[in-house]
C-alpha cells in the first residue's frame, strides 16, 4: 500500500512532489482506470487545498482554480463569455461526475473526447503550473500535446486556468454529440467564443473536439468569420475546408467520415446558436 497525502496548502503539496506521486483530484478519471485492481501508488490528494478551488475575477480576467468542479462552474455567476464552458460543464457525465470531477483533471487526463477542452480552447485559456521552483503559464493549446499527453513536468501541478477579459462584448456556446443522453463520451463537440462590436464579429475563437488526438482550433474559420454580421446566418459561412486541422478516426462511436460531416453540422448550428 502506498502513501496518501492530503495537504491543506499548496506549498506542502509542492514540497511533497520532490518524489513521484500520482495526483488525485475528483477521482473520476483516476478510479475508473483502476477497476478490479488494488491501488498501490503513492497518492497526492489535492482536493483539500482551498486555494486551488473556485473562480475569482482578477485584474486581467478570471482565474478558474484547478479543482473547481463542473457543478461549481455550472452554478457560478459569470458573464456570457463563459456560457459555452458552462454548457460543457452540464454535459460532462451525469450529476455525480459534475459534483466531483474538476477542470484541471479534465485537461490533465488529456482525453481526445474531454468536453472541457474545446470550450477552454475557445476561451484562449492559459494553464498555470506550479512547482517548488516557481510557476509558469502556458496556453492550453500548448499544454495538451497528444492523447493522454501533456506538458506537465515532474514536480508540477496545475493550479489554475486563466481567461483574459476580451476587448469586446463576448458570447459563447458549446454543442456536444453523443449516442445517448447523459453519461456519454462525445462523438464530436465544438465550442465558440465570439467577440462582437457594432453588430459585427470582431474576433472568433472556435475549437472542435473528438475529431483529432487533441481538440483543435480552426484558424481559417475564425478568420472567415471576422468582420461578418453577427446574426443567425453566421453558420452559413462554415465551409468543409475550414476543418483542415481535424484528423478524425474510426472507432466504436463513429466513422472518420461521419465525424467530418457532423463537425461541419455542429459548427453551423453552434454559430447560429451563439448568434441567436
Amino acid at each position, binding site marked *: *500500500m*502506498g502513501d*496518501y497525502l*492530503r495537504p491543506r496548502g499548496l506549498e506542502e503539496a509542492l514540497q511533497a512532489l520532490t518524489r513521484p506521486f500520482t495526483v*488525485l483530484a*475528483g*477521482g*473520476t478519471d*483516476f*478510479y*475508473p482506470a483502476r*477497476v*478490479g*485492481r*488494488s*491501488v*498501490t501508488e503513492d*497518492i497526492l*490528494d489535492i*482536493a*483539500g487545498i482551498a486555494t486551488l478551488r473556485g473562480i475569482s475575477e482578477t485584474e486581467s480576467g478570471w482565474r478558474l482554480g484547478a479543482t473547481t468542479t463542473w*457543478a461549481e462552474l455550472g452554478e457560478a455567476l459569470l458573464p456570457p463569455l463563459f456560457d459555452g464552458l458552462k454548457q460543457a460543464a452540464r454535459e460532462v*457525465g*451525469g*450529476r*455525480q*461526475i459534475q*459534483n*466531483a470531477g474538476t477542470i484541471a483533471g479534465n485537461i490533465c487526463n488529456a482525453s481526445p473526447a474531454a468536453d472541457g477542452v474545446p470550450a477552454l480552447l475557445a476561451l484562449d485559456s492559459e494553464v498555470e503550473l506550479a512547482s517548488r521552483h516557481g510557476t509558469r503559464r502556458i496556453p492550453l493549446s500548448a499544454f495538451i500535446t497528444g492523447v493522454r499527453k501533456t506538458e506537465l513536468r515532474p514536480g508540477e501541478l496545475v493550479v489554475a486556468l486563466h481567461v483574459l477579459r476580451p476587448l469586446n462584448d463576448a458570447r459563447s456556446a458549446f454543442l456536444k*454529440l453523443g*449516442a*445517448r*443522453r*447523459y*453519461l*456519454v*463520451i462525445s*462523438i464530436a463537440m465544438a465550442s465558440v467564443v465570439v467577440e462582437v462590436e457594432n453588430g459585427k464579429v470582431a474576433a472568433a475563437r472556435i475549437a472542435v473536439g473528438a475529431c483529432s488526438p487533441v481538440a483543435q482550433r480552426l484558424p481559417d474559420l475564425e478568420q472567415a468569420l471576422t468582420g461578418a454580421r453577427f446574426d443567425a446566418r453566421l453558420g452559413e459561412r462554415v465551409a468543409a475546408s475550414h476543418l483542415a486541422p481535424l484528423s478524425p478516426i474510426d472507432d*466504436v*462511436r*463513429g*466513422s472518420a467520415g*461521419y465525424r467530418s*460531416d*457532423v463537425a461541419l*453540422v455542429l459548427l453551423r448550428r453552434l454559430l447560429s446558436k451563439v448568434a441567436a
Partner: protein
Amino acid sequence: MKLEFTLNGNAASWDGPPVTRLAAALRDDLGLTGTKIGCDAGDCGACTVLLDGRQVCSCLVAMGQVSGRSVETVEGLSADGEVVAALQQSFLDHGAAQCGICTPGMLMAAQELVRRNSKPTRTEVEDSLGGVLCRCTGYGKIVDAVMDVVASAPVTAPPAGEAVGARIVRVDGPAKVTGRDLFGADGIPGDALWIRVVRSPHARARFELGDLEPLRRRLAAVLTAADVPFNGYGIYPDIKDQPVLADGLVRYRGEAVVALVGERAEVMAICDDEVPIAWMPETPLFGVDAAMADDAPLVQADRPGNLLLKGGVKRGDMAAAFEGCAAVAEGTFETAFVEHAYIEPEAGWARRIGDRIEIHATTQTPYMDRDEIANLMRLKPEAVRIVPTACGGGFGGKLDLSVQPLIAVAAWTLGRPVALVYTRPESMAASTKRHPARVRARFGCDAHGKLLACDVTALFDTGAYASWGPTVANRVPVHAMGPYAIPNVRTWGEAFFTNGPPAGAFRGFGVPQAAIAHEAMLDELADRLGIDRLEFRHRNALRAGDTTATGQTLTHSAGLAQCLDALRPHWRKAHEEIAAFNATGGSRRRGIGIGCMWYGIGNTSMSNPSRMRVGLSPGGTLTLYSGALDIGQGSNTIMVQIAADAVGLPASQFALVTGDTDLTADAGKTSASRQTFVSGKAAEKAGQDLRQQILRLANAGPDAVLSLDGATLSVRDGAEVRTIDLATAGPLMGEGTFDPPTTPLDADGQGVPYATYAFAAQLAEVEVDTELGTVKVLRIVAAHDVGRAINPTLVEGQIQGGVAQGLGLALMEEYLPGRTENLHDYLIPTVGDIPEIECLLIEDREPLGPSGAKGIGEPALVPTAPAILGAVHHATGVRVHRVPLLPHRLHEGIVALKGKSQ
C-alpha cells in the same frame, strides 16, 4: 489511517488505507450494503450517495476525501421511527423498484433534488437521475415517483378474494427501497476467502500453465481445470461443452483459465502477468461466414462445420405460393452481440456443511444450478443446496452458471466459505450475450394484402459454447413468420460456433432479431400496396380459430387484433401530428412505426413443470413456498396474489419462502416468460388444494368465506360459522403442479410447441436529425394481450422495461469483445433516452392460465425495435438492415438515399 466523518447524521470513524473507495468502506467495513456496486467506474450510479448533500459516485471517492464531511446513504433516508421516508413510499406506490439493485442509487440521486425542490419538473428529475442506470424499469415509474413524492396516496391492501387484478405494492418492495435486500455480493461472511479469476486475453489460443507452486505457497489455492471433478457444463443434458476452467485451449476472450483463492486483498493484488501462462494464440473465427467457410477450423472438435443445430417449420407449398403473389418483399437483416447489462454483476459465496455444499448466489434458476453443480462436483443433487440471493437483474443472462462452480469447488476443497464477485468488465467478457443474427426474409401477399407465403432463414452466431443456442435455434423458426396467418411457410434456423462470447438466453430467445425482419417485410408490402401499415397487420393477424404454421389451432386468447384496435386511434392521431410537423421543413423529420409480435409461453415442445406449496402452520402462519425466482419482474408478488385468491384469504396475510432448494419445490427457471403462466397456475392449484382441505375440515361448501386470526381459522358458510383451531388441526399443506401441454415438433416443425401465446403491438414515434443521423424516440404506445393482468403495475413495469431494452437493441447496443467491455463504451439507455411509454393492457383470457393470465416478460421487448426502425423509415425513407442503428450508420443511409434520388 483513522478518519472521522458524519454518516447518516451520526459521528462515524473508519480506519484503513485512505485511498479505499467510499463504496467499499461503506459495504465492507461499515456494514452498509445498501449502497451497491455495479461497475466501480462511475458508469452506473448504483453507488450514488450524498457527500455534503451532493450526489457522488461512492466508487470514485477516496476515504481520505471523506474525512470531516457528511455522508448520507440509503440506510439514512428514513427518519428514526419511520418505516420509510416519503420518497421511498413513493417508489413503492409507483412500482419504481423492480430488481431493486439501482434503487438505492436512484433514491439518493433523487434525494439531492427533492430536498431542494419538492415539486420538480420532468426535466429536472431527468437531469438529476441521468447518472444512474436502470436496466429493469425503463425509468418511467421512477420519474413519476420522484415527481409525485408529495401527492402519492398509499395503495390500500385488497380484501380476501380481490388480490388478482389489484395494483398491490410488491411484497419485497420495502426491503428494496430501504437497502435491506441482500444481493449476491451483500451477505458474504467476513471470514470468506475470495477468488480472482484469470481470464483469457485471446479469443482463440492454446496455452500451457507454468509452475504454479510459488503462487500456491502464497495463496490458499490456485485452481485449474484439473481441480474440477467433471469439467464441463451446459444447459442441455447432452451438451456439457463449456469448461469451468479452460484446459489447454480457450475459445473466447474472457474465458476462465485459473482461479486464485486466498484472502481478498491478496488475490486482488496479484496481476495477471504474475500467473505463468504461456499463450499460443490462433486466428479466431468471428462471425457466421467465417464459421461456415469450407476450410474453417473447428471451434468444438466434435462439431463438423461448426454447426450447433439446424431446423425449421414447413407448411403448405411456399415456392408455388410465391408465384401467385401480387407483391413480394425481401431483405436481409443483421443484429449484433447484445449484453444483458444487469446492474448487478454476478456474485455469490459458498460454504461446505459436512457432506453438503451450500451456494448463495444471484441466479434465475436454482434447481438447474443445483443439478449442474452436482454434476460438476460428482455429488448427488441432494448434496447441493442453492440459496438464491436477491437477483439484481437477469434477463436470461443469469440462467447460465457464473460464479457458482468455482466457489463450490473452492469451498468444498478448502472447507472455508469462498466468495466471488465479478468486476463489470469481467461480467461483460465472461457472460453470455444475445445471439447475433442474420435473417433473410421473403414475404408475399395477394393484391388485397392477404399474406400468402413467407420464407425466412435465420443464421445465428452462438459463440464458443452451446449454452442456450439450441433453444434460440428452435424457437425462432416457430415465430419467424410473425403473428400472422400465412398458409405457406418455410422458416429455417441454423446456429454456428465461433470464437465470440457464448451466446445464450436473452429476453426473447432470438425472436426479437427475427421480428426486425418480419416487421420490415410487412411494412414494405403494405407500402407497396398502398395499404396502411396497421390495417395491413390487422388484416393478417392470427386470431382464435386460426391454425399456425406448426399446425396448431389457436382456440383462445389470441388478442393481436384487439391490440391493433387499441392502437388505432393513437396511430391515426400521430400520423396527423407528424405530417404537420414535417410540413414545417427543417433537418428534423418525424416518423411513426409499428411492430407486432407473438410469443410462445414456456419451453418449446418440452415439459417445464412447476410445483408450488401453500402451508398453514399450527401457529396460523400462512406461507407460500415458491421456487419461482423473482429477478425483479415481480413473481413474488404475483404468486402471492394468485395463491391468496385461490385460498380465499387476503394477500397481506401471506408469508413467502422463495428460491431455496431445501425449502421450496422446483418451479423451473425464470425464463421464457413462464412464471406467471406456469408457476402461477401451480400456485393457484396449491391454493385451491389448501382451500379444499380447509373446507373439508369445516365440512363447508365451495362458497364458504375464510378468515384467519392468529391460530384460529373461521369458515363462514351461509349463516353458519365454524372455527378451526390450527394448533390442533395441525399443519396443512396445499400443493399444486402445472406443466403446460405441448407436443414435440416433427421434422417439418409440425406440432404444438406452446400451450399459449402472448400477442402485442407497439407504435413508436421518432424524430430523426437527418444531418446528424441521431434518433430520438418521442413516444411509445404498447398494447399487450397478457390474458389477464394479475398486477397491472407490475405488467406495465415489464412493458416499460422491455421497451427500454428494445430501444437499446435498435439504437445503441453492440458488444464488441475487448472494445465495449464496460458501461461507458457499451451504452444502454439512460433516463434521458426513454420516452413516455403508454401501456394498453388487453385481457383476452387464456383458460389454461391462472385467472386467465399468460406472460409478459419477453413479449415486452420484441416489438419495440421493429416499431422504431419502421418509424425511422417513415421519417427518412431509409430501410435499416443492421442494428444497432448508430448515428453514423443512419447518416450513411441518409446520404446514400440522397445520392440515389439525385
